[in-house]
């Protein structure tokens, strides 16, 4: 039973790895300035963020200004995690 379980997880892991390695073929080279991720959207942010948000740090500008609602949701995630930790670890009333 136990070996059977390990075998199944090995097969799943190796299949996933093979799929990922197959996907590497299409990835751009390391540090390529013209790769799709670097060429399409991000130049606009680099060129316009300082002027539009008056923030030197583009990461902060995007995090708190362009994606402000995303950051609001992120704080909701932290808040939910903190509240659930509080309720999970709270000492049960009465008993020590």
């Amino acid at each position, binding site marked *: 039973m*136990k070996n059977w*379980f*390990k075998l*199944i*997880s*090995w097969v*799943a*892991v*190796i299949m*996933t*790895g093979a799929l*990922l*390695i197959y996907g*590497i073929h299409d*990835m751009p*080279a*390391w*540090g*390529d*300035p013209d*790769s799709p*991720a*670097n060429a399409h*959207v*991000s*130049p606009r*942010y*680099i*060129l316009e*963020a*300082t*002027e539009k948000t*008056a923030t*030197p*740090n*583009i*990461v902060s500008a*995007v*995090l708190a200004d362009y*994606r402000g609602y*995303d*950051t609001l949701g*992120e704080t909701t*995630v*932290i808040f*939910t*995690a*903190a509240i*659930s*930790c509080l309720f*999970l*670890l709270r000492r049960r009333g009465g008993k020590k």
Partner: protein
Amino acid sequence: MLEYILAKYNFWIYVVLMMIGLYAMMGKRNLVKKLIGMNIFQTSIILFFVSIGVKKGGATVPIIMGHGHGHGQHLIKVADYLNPLPHVLMLTAIVVSIATTGVALATLILIYKRYHTLEEDEILAIRKDPSSYKTLG
């Protein structure tokens, strides 16, 4: 073959890390080891995204100094600054990973208090047959 691997060696590293994390999540029986596997998995994804934003050829961190409002602007060259978007997304991902790790650790404490073990098969045996539950002193 070796050159083929070395050309995009970063992606191979992330694939290996992700496989380690996935195996730890699926194949291990200890719940803490599963949690560590989940963290390795998330770390591989974070490294993958950060490596996507790298630009060769002298690009620095995306902080633009000396560009005030309108006056005295030099030309900003896109190739001089790293891609900021993966960094932003991974800030969010790190926060989510911290939150999940915290809640999972709190849950593990509760599981240990209830069953006095963190081994998955022992917990399942106790749930199937509560008389096998051995109390700790």
